[in-house]
């Protein structure tokens, strides 16, 4: 491996990616600096899994849109990690706090496995969607803790929403501990299958999907979901970039 970036052809390639490429060798193994760098990244990711959600930040960023709070039936982080079934259901106390619509969309901001992801990227996606959805009936945003993806089904059903959008922290990776995922579900109700959702993943600012572009894709999917009355494997993300721009600002299909 060459010593200076100018002589190292990997330098140009590394600019295209955060992947650990062109690492060099110590025999067959990795050089020590790469081994220790990997261990540090793993330590940071493990810490991110256990960090609690600070709801104040996202709540302030969502205003003036109304905000509600909900929590799953998992009482704490360690139970949450072992009991995904509890993370998919609302705590009884949260059930009564959700109003009944009707709404076109319910947005849920959920900690998932990375509270940092929600704190940093959920509000920008939400605001970018709002700007593209004039005339849509949008439920109060729900900030949910100890939440799994399917918790959005119960929240959306409770709110009487035609679509549920889950903005949820993805499992932290070594390179990016704050990646956000979006799950869109038509006619949300308890018991929906994962194949009945559309997913947009890897939303973050370290070379991931930009919140504006994520919102454009999501709004396109929302319109298609309402027009075709489904989400999931029956709804292909077939949009070209021109279509993403052209549908923004239109009212919801009935």
């Amino acid at each position, binding site marked *: *491996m*060459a010593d200076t970036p100018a*002589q190292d*052809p*990997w330098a*140009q*390639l*590394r600019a*295209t*990616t*955060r*992947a*650990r*490429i*062109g*690492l060099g*060798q110590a*025999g*067959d*193994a*990795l050089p020590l600096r*790469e081994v220790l760098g*990997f*261990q540090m*990244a*793993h330590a940071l*990711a*493990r810490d*991110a*899994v256990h960090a609690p959600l600070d709801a104040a930040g996202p709540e302030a960023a969502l205003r003036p849109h109304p905000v509600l709070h909900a929590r799953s039936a998992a009482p704490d982080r360690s139970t949450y*990690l*072992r*009991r*995904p*079934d509890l993370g998919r259901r609302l705590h009884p106390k949260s059930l009564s706090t959700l109003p009944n619509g009707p709404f076109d969309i319910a947005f849920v901001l959920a900690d998932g*496995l990375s509270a940092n992801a929600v704190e940093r990227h959920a509000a920008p996606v939400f605001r970018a969607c709002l700007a593209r959805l004039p005339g849509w009936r949008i439920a109060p945003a729900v900030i949910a803790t100890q939440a799994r993806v399917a918790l959005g089904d119960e929240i959306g059903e409770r709110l009487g929403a035609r679509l549920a959008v889950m903005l949820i922290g*993805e*499992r*932290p*990776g*070594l*390179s*990016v501990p704050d*990646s956000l995922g979006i799950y869109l579900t038509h006619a949300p109700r308890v*018991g929906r*299958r*994962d*194949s009945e959702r559309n*997913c947009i*993943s*890897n939303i*973050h600012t370290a*070379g*991931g*999907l930009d919140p504006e572009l994520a919102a454009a894709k999501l709004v396109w999917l929302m319109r298609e979901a309402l027009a075709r009355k489904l989400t999931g*494997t029956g709804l*292909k*993300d*077939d949009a*070209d970039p021109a279509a993403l721009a052209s549908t923004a600002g239109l009212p919801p299909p009935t």
Partner: protein
Amino acid sequence: MGCWTAIAGGEQYRFEGLAQLLAAASPRRSGDDLAGIAATSDAQRVAARFALADLPLRAFLSEAVVPYEADEVTRLILDTHDAAAFARIAHLTVGDFRDWLLSHEADAVALAAISPGLTPEMVAATSKLMRNQDLIAVERKRRVVTAFRSTLGLEGRLATRLQPNHPTDDLRGIAAYTLDGLLNGSGDAVIGVNPATDSVPNGIALLEMLDGLRRQYDIPTQTCVLTHVTNAMEIMQRGAPVDLVFQSVAGTEGANRGFGVDLAILREARDAALSLKRAGPSGEVMYFETGQGSALSAEAHHGVDQQTLEARAYAVCRAFRPLLVNTVVGFIGSEYLYDGKQIIRAGLEDHFCGKLLGLPMGVDVCYTNHAEADGDDMDGLMTLLAAAGVHFLICVPGADDIMLNYQSLSFHDVLALRTMLGLRPAPEFEDWLIRMGIARPGGPIRPPELAASRLMQLAHEAGARG
């Protein structure tokens, strides 16, 4: 429904039905605890193993763990069972069968001959009576050879899937990872990318780039975009170069519905891929991934333990003559496999069950950041699997998959394994590595300096594109 009792430690234990007996006999794992079906004590677990050891293998043909009427996977298993192949072992109990598998009489030919007579439940039950050492000893004897442009599964060989995933499917980034992997001797089983965006136009763009690269450098391997089977069918209709059709599958009809598939759609997709006439004479055009816990995750587990259900997924795979199958063993997370010990055990079980049923079984040796596991655990599992003759392993740059956010093996890990255990890549791919100056004739892989490599031109193009 059968009922079994066993006495252990002065106490009598009772097991109602095969599903309960199998679950209680299973080595401890968090997914079975989550489902509420695991043994409630270590003594009960071993008592269940005593009872299971005395069970005739035949019992699995008369009592289904998931009802025949309610589940097409059960129907597939029982309707395609080969009674003639089973005849040789029909008189054995599960315990006898474990002993026979380990016997020197049970060589590669004998094991291959009984494969069509085995059901997943028989194989899963037997694995529960086997230590890790026993699993490895039998796995090592059972070679399964498959072929497309490269020949996989031969004695003394260890193949890899090069997995160049990118968070935004950037073609330059994916080309850069692919280059890094090729220079390190990876990619002989498949160059297979998981797309970040599961769309048809995106899948076509990725396939055309990977296929163009393969043709330009005449690489004897396969390419694959791991998109949903219905996307692959649409992509094939639009004329894009599909070598392998990929799908995640599980061991119950309900869990497969959770993946948006059934047996009929898999059959249709396989026919479509065969009609492209890209494959070799063996017609192996399917690539499946599985993993313990998927049926429970989809709430379609019927009270059956996750390891038995995983083995049932292999019956689905077996029906479609795949080129490649792998369990993504540590990907699902600590809810199903809590720590390194559970992941290692599950990886060996999955490899054992897949091979015994006749599958080209590979493993994604991996873990997530919410599991109690680290690289040391993966070093253990990869070495055990390589000793066991695994069909292929998955590698990503620096063990860090920046799209799926988990850790698999690195290119370096496989280099080390090949050196430590004297294992070589697939023969056609090894010849190509020698032509490219990456491997020395008849010997070790020595990744060349990029600047001096024959693949540098590829790097220039990757840098210039986009």
